[in-house]
């Protein structure tokens, strides 16, 4: 009986994993362009960074993992900015005022942008907050990570170094 239960749970787990793997992603496709207003009031267009490696981090004030991920990304930015890395933090928070307040308190060295229309979320097929996407110099999505747990930044660094070498 125990074996049967074990087999059933394994099958269920495998099915869940396969369904998660089948979730639509932009890997290997051109990253959709966007233009958004930043915390400093400037508008930034993603395609203007073509030729550089771009890391887009979708974050939300209410996502606890974002609070851990943003400082980690800030450390990466201070190290790799000069090597040609651009980090863009995109808030998908509906409450713009509170998102701005949160962003101001984070005091990061990379631009934090605000998407109030939720169109970009659809285009980037956001599944869960936070979500991080790495775009190569030619504008193609090469890596994506849903959620954030301690240690993920090491995977980011591996991919960033690889893309910067290309």
């Amino acid at each position, binding site marked *: 009986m125990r074996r049967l239960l074990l087999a059933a749970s394994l099958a269920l787990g495998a099915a869940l994993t396969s369904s998660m793997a089948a979730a639509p992603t932009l890997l290997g496709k051109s990253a959709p362009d966007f*233009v*958004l*207003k930043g915390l400093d009031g*400037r*508008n*930034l*267009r993603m395609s*203007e960074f073509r030729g550089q490696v771009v890391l887009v981090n979708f974050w939300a004030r209410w996502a606890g993992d974002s609070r851990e991920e943003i400082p980690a990304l800030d450390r990466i930015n201070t190290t790799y900015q000069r090597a040609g890395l651009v980090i863009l933090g995109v808030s998908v928070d509906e409450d713009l005022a509170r998102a701005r307040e949160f962003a101001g308190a984070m005091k990061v060295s990379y631009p934090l942008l605000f998407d109030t229309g939720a169109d970009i979320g659809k285009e980037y097929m956001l599944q869960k907050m936070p979500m991080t996407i790495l775009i190569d110099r030619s504008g193609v999505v090469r890596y994506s990570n849903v959620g954030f747990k301690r240690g993920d930044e090491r995977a980011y660094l591996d991919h960033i170094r690889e893309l910067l070498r290309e």
Partner: protein
Amino acid sequence: MSPKIRVVSIIVRGLLLACAWAALGAPAFTAASTAAAPAAAPAAPASAATTPASGTAAPAQAPPAAAPAAADAPPTEFKTLDQEVQGLKKDVIDLNKDLFVLEEELLFPANTQVALYVSMDVGTFFALDSVTVKIDNKEVKNYLYTAREADALLKGGVQQIYLGNLKVGKHELVAFFTGKGPTDRDYKRGATINFDKGVGAKYLELKITDRVAKHQPEFAIKDWE
């Protein structure tokens, strides 16, 4: 030329290009086969190596004589092949251009086409941030300008901000401009135009200029007849 005839001509040209590619494929293979032939030649002397030494002498000298001839032959062939490929590439670019024009003609036929352009002159009293366009009270475009794009406009660039279709008749266009005005204050102004859409394409220009006398920016919509 009517769109239908153009479609047919483009399809015919596409087919001709495809035939040309297929025809090019043959020389490529023949070039490969001729290049493969000398490579096969040394195989014979190798098998002949089992025969007495006197017999192997003649075949052993043959490949070096054949090799320079084989090495000289492919470049001329490849040169002509390269020229043909270049010609085909040019044809593809021409075809692509025709398709682009045709697509625009089909999606936005002249009798319904309306195109909006944005231009900016001087810009001392206004730093452009965004433009929102409404036609007949329906928002058709909201465009945020990056610093680079605003600079391009200041340098004389003209941006096509919208291309769409409108029925023949009277229409109203309202454009809202937001940005930083004089003394770096947030600034939002609107401009309205009522226009008649005739059977031809309609071109409208959203113009941002400086009114020096009043130290204020000026927003206008020009109807290009």
